[in-house]
């Protein structure tokens, strides 16, 4: 393609997300399940404009194109495919009564949801490696 697409700088991306734990503490971490689409959204703070980058399988990462901060995740086919295959996340969300029949929301600030916060760290590492060749 003749048109250059957006490429982000690896070091700037890592720097922007160095304090993701502090940002989660300040802005909060929330999960929203859309039953119609069987999609889970995890947001740091409220909804924000962002690029969406595919991470692995059903998981996509939301990134602010200006600050390069990770602002959330989107996981497609969450109950049908992702959760059965991810025991740690399944265990972390065991008290949240998710079903395909109704939407629901859950704040994820308690310690039992730590595996969800770990996904942020995984995304930083994963995307940093993917973009290293682009800088």
């Amino acid at each position, binding site marked *: *393609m003749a048109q250059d*697409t*957006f*490429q*982000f700088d690896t070091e700037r991306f890592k720097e922007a997300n160095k304090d993701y734990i502090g940002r989660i503490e300040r802005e909060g971490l929330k999960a929203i399940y859309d039953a*119609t689409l069987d999609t889970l959204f995890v947001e740091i703070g409220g909804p924000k*404009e962002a*690029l969406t980058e*595919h991470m692995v399988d*059903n998981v996509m990462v939301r990134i602010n194109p200006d600050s390069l901060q990770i602002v959330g995740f989107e996981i497609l086919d969450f109950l049908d495919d992702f959760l059965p295959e991810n025991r740690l996340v399944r265990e972390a969300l065991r008290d949240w009564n998710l079903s395909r029949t109704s939407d629901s929301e859950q704040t994820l600030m308690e310690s039992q949801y730590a595996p969800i916060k770990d996904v942020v760290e995984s995304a930083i590492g994963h995307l940093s490696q993917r973009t290293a060749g682009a800088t």
Partner: protein
Amino acid sequence: MSFPRECRDYKGLRVIVTQAVAIHVSQRHVEMMIHLEKICDVLKTPDLVYFRKRTDSYIFYKLGVLSGSISRNYMVVIAKYDENGEGLVRTTFSTGKPANGDMLVHMTGGA
């Protein structure tokens, strides 16, 4: 733009954009709200189409249709098809490059 809306993909197959998807975009992909009307265009004349076996989904990519801070990105539409070949849009967003690991099934000459 009203929903549900019927589009045709690059093969001529019917693909529906539901009200649920429009609401999902307005709430969770706020940057795509002004680009909802372009979903049909992406489906009909994509630059790239990939198939994701894991989720049985088709991922359509098109450059040059977005504006503003995301203008240099692909507009992406993910659709699933039923056994009759009728599609449903799952989501739409913008991304810098196609996802890894998917199978390329269509590419235009300029891509």
